[in-house]
């Protein structure tokens, strides 16, 4: 589903990713872990198509297509979803209407029939239960005056409604208390299936107690320096990152 080969990216003059390789098959959950500044969020943003990142080398193939050629909205139409580390507040834009427009934009671009108001409401009612979304959050402006936990829950709620093929969760666990973390994790787990792939970007092992990854990768200095199964995360929790990163210290620290 996703093939990243030798990916190099720069922000301005600063090189962040320095030859990243990653291959993800349908239905797999991959955790990307790593110290602060290792390039985790850069990877998430490059995959979603955020401006400001220059790809200098390498390729990203998604379902056999060149992902880097696509605009952010085209990636969304193609089934890619980014749960933001810092969900953006958009005053004056209604949460539920944004979702409806998003659902229908995706359907339209796939040649499917758009949902009317009734069908759409039926769809979201179902999904709201998944993350225990409160009704009043729906009718408010996107993320405006939401608590940190509500924002993250809203991201997973959007993911549930948009049913992506590839979901990238960028530090979805950060800033969540344990109850919120459980709710969010349950939501994500219920969305796991054989077709849907998930990339979990996280700094902490804690999230992986609740969402069990198939693979764990350690990103440091802009490269994946170690990959393994879920047990690697436990090892990292115990020993920290230093023991792995050591080999890598000739590299510049990345933002």
């Amino acid at each position: 589903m996703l093939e990243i080969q030798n990916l190099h990216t720069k922000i301005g003059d600063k090189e962040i990713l320095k030859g990243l390789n990653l291959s993800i098959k349908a239905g797999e959950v991959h955790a990307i872990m790593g110290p602060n500044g290792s390039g985790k969020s850069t990877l998430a943003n490059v995959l979603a198509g955020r401006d400001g990142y220059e790809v200098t080398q390498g390729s990203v193939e998604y379902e056999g297509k060149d992902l880097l050629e696509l605009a952010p909205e085209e990636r969304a139409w193609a089934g890619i979803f980014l749960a933001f580390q810092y969900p953006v507040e958009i005053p004056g834009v209604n949460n539920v209407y944004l979702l409806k427009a998003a659902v229908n934009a995706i359907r339209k671009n796939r040649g499917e029939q758009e949902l009317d108001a009734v069908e759409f409401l039926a769809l979201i009612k179902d999904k709201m239960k998944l993350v225990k979304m409160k009704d009043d959050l729906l009718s408010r402006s996107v993320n405006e005056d939401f608590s940190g936990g509500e924002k993250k829950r809203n991201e997973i709620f959007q993911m549930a409604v948009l049913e992506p093929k590839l979901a990238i969760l960028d530090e979805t666990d950060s800033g969540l208390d344990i109850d919120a973390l459980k709710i969010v994790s349950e939501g994500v787990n219920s969305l796991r299936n054989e077709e849907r792939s998930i990339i979990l970007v996280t700094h902490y092992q804690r999230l992986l107690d609740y969402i069990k990854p198939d693979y764990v990768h350690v990103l440091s200095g802009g490269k994946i320096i170690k990959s393994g199964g879920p047990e690697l995360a436990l090892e990292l929790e115990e020993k920290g990152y230093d023991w792995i990163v050591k080999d890598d210290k000739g590299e510049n620290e990345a933002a």
Partner: protein
Amino acid sequence: MSQENMNNNAQHYLAEFDQFQETVERDWFSEQRQSALKLFIETGFPSSRLENWKYTDVRPIAKQSFSNVSTTTSITTEEIDAIRFQDIDCYELVFINGVYSKEHSRLDGLTENIVIENMADALAKDKDLLEKHLSQYADNNVSPFTALNTAFIQHGTYINVPKNTVVDKPINILYLSKDNAQPLATHPRNLVIMGEHAEATLIENYIGLDDANYFTNVVTEVSLSTASILKHYKIQQESVNAYHIGNLNVTQGKDSLFKSHSISLGGSLVRNDIYGQLAAEGASIVLNGLYMTDGKQHVDNHTRVDHLKPNTHSTENYRGVLNGKSRGVFNGKVVVHPQAQKIEAHQNNANLLLSDDAEIDTKPELEIYADDVKCSHGATVGQLDKNMLFYLRSRAIDEDTARSLLTYAFVNEIISDISLVPIKNRLEHLIIGQLPDAELIREFTNE
């Protein structure tokens, strides 16, 4: 323009005035007209060397010889019905090329004690009352345009709401401008007198048809007695070739409230001035504004609020969206006078520049001569927020729609505050109509 040309143009207005005087009866106001004209001739059009006119060059108005004679004063029922608010029951006064149209105005059902009529009729009938109020709140010395308007006072709206009276429906004034034999200058004059505890809603609409070239020079005076309330809307949709200069002067009594929404969408060269005098304790003024410009439009909003007495409040929130090569000016001045303790004054101006060639000069000003006050002011100028754009696009919204949506969300902050729903709907309609993907955006609006 050289000084000589300015004077030549003064000659033009002198000649126009002579002609005008032949059409109106000599009355109690004649002397005031003459002295106002004299003042205008002496000062001439304001030069951009004056601080108050620094960013707005009125030479395009000064160099044209606008006529004072309306040759077109009719409109078909179909034309007017397309312009009226269809979903709101209101008292309506219609002016076509500056001339009152009794035929199209609707004032039936008005209770006897409330006066809403054409200024020309009021001048003839209500000398005693008018003498006390007309030209008492707008100062001919402050703007030459006000002096020019005073010289030519004839048509306009006179409203008098007596003590303890609530006008049951909004008062809607339509100033329509169409093609005229010669480019026309109109000088509408509105006077609103609110008695104690009186309440009313007033809407001033300026609408240009036929892409006509004309000059609207309006002056509105408002006097608010104790605890009276006036909600005021100005919706400026002059034609793309029109000039609009508007002066709104409000003098407020104890515990009175003036709430204004000034929406500027049209016009080639536009200047709106609002002067608020908080002349007694407990008076509050709320000034909200929105300007949306494109092409080569120039829109200047100047406001000045004087806190003359303690415990007075002013709040101002103006937003601008500038596209193309258009230019905006915002100058909001708040003066807190020495005895005006315990006042509160807050002011904000935010601007969105949608193109590289658009320009805004913004200047919030606070002058404080009292020591126990709460004041704030701020101004921002920016482009659409990149994070918001990316967020929307990552949620499958295409770039053009995302841009329109964020622009709409930005102006909606001003519109959403409008309590009169039909006006809000009309403004939403007008504003969204200027954006691509109008239908989709309509769905997004927070209701």
